[in-house]
């Protein structure tokens, strides 16, 4: 069993010239960032972790080894010790829009222009509380690792697989009482909704008609996450290929970014405990139940596989 000592104090001071210790003693100074939005002790969680170097490059491609240790019910206030009780293999998941790997097999350090993504694994956490993760990999011919801490909730906070989808009336291009930018933030500046086919129906109407739905909740312009990419474009491309399988819906998060007003449909699905994370993709079956969900980084192959599992429409 691997004993991990995690520095839970690695958070927060805001200082203009803050120094990062990431390179201290490291072969290559790596930082691990948990990119999952809704980890819980219910069933299998989608664990996502990104690896970033001190000079803001990404570790991309291949696989990494993941070890998880339970640290306690409360957030550790100092060094925390845990024993690795779960292991998994993290497979590389490129952010949509990243160029293809082209022969890369193992993890490599690349610039954001070349590729970016996270490592993903399905993990069953057996307890709620604070966990530590150690990410191990071979990088530039040497063993390397990074660690991070994160919280696992007792229950999922956002609608999950098997839950009934919320019958929300998201804004469509026909909305008379909302600015175009509330329908799609890309229309905020020029009034043009770039993917009108994603704004033709509501989740509520599709469920009422027993039509499957692929719903992407995102704010293409106002996304501030390091890992957000053109996920809405990816869903629009899938819509072109799988219109026979489902209704495709884009729910814009913001009604007014500057006023901090969130669209009601996005709030109903995602606003929890003062926070709202995006992007999300949900696949909803003809019975109105969620069959798949993808938080933050959703790669086209995994979303496409979930769509292909939907029954063909008559």
């Amino acid at each position: 069993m691997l004993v991990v000592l995690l520095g839970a104090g690695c958070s927060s001071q805001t200082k203009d010239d803050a120094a990062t210790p990431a390179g201290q003693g490291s072969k290559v100074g790596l930082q691990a960032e948990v990119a999952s939005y809704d980890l819980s002790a219910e069933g299998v969680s989608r664990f996502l972790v990104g690896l970033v170097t001190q000079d803001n490059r990404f570790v991309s491609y291949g696989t990494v080894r993941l070890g998880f240790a339970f640290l306690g019910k409360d957030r550790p206030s100092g060094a925390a010790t845990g024993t690795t009780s779960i292991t998994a293999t993290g497979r590389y998941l490129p952010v949509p829009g990243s160029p293809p790997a082209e022969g890369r097999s193992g993890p490599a350090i690349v610039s954001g222009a070349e590729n970016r993504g996270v490592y993903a694994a399905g993990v069953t956490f057996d307890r709620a509380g604070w966990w530590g993760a150690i990410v191990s990999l071979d990088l530039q011919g040497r063993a390397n690792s990074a660690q991070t801490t994160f919280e696992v909730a007792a229950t999922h906070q956002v609608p999950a697989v098997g839950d009934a989808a919320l019958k929300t009336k998201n804004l469509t291009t026909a909305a008379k009482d909302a600015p175009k930018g509330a329908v799609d933030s890309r229309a905020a500046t020029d009034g043009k909704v770039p993917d009108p086919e994603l704004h033709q129906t509501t989740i509520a109407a599709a469920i009422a008609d027993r039509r499957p739905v692929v719903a992407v909740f995102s704010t293409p312009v106002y996304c501030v996450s390091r890992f957000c990419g053109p996920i809405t474009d990816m869903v629009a491309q899938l819509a072109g290929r799988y219109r026979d399988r489902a209704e495709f819906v884009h729910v814009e998060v913001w009604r007014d970014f500057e006023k901090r007003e969130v669209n009601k449909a996005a709030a109903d699905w995602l606003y929890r405990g003062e926070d709202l994370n995006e992007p999300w993709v949900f696949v909803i079956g003809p019975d109105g139940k969620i069959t798949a969900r993808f938080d933050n980084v959703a790669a086209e192959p995994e979303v496409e596989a979930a769509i292909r599992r939907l029954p063909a429409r008559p």
Partner: protein
Amino acid sequence: MAVAVVAGLGATACAADTDQLAGPVAASPSAGGQPVSAASLQSAATALCGARQQAASDVAGARGVFYALAHDRLHDLARMVQDRDRAAAARLLEAKAAVERDFAGQVTARKARADLERLVRATGAALGVLSIAPPACAGEPERK
């Protein structure tokens, strides 16, 4: 309804050099758990100036500079600014989105330069919100 949206990178993050980790280390995150220095934000702004200049003759090269040296730091900058000056964060993200749209398709050098110019200025304004001096190039008119 007025609510705050946060990026989903709330976990603490530290580096390690072996599987046998050695005690606590201190990090200094100020944007979603990721350490960000003033110098790195200034450096991103300087890179944008370079991309603006390069776009005149080499749009693909400007794209490379933008994504390699500026893009991610602009996300960090927006995250840091959004709670202090929402309008400045909005202008920054809108300008960034315009540049991304340019680089995703066929764009003329003139349009790319114009949108990069807008982004340089929005970045300078956002740095100002954090009391970080923008690089000199961010205040200069574009050299043709």
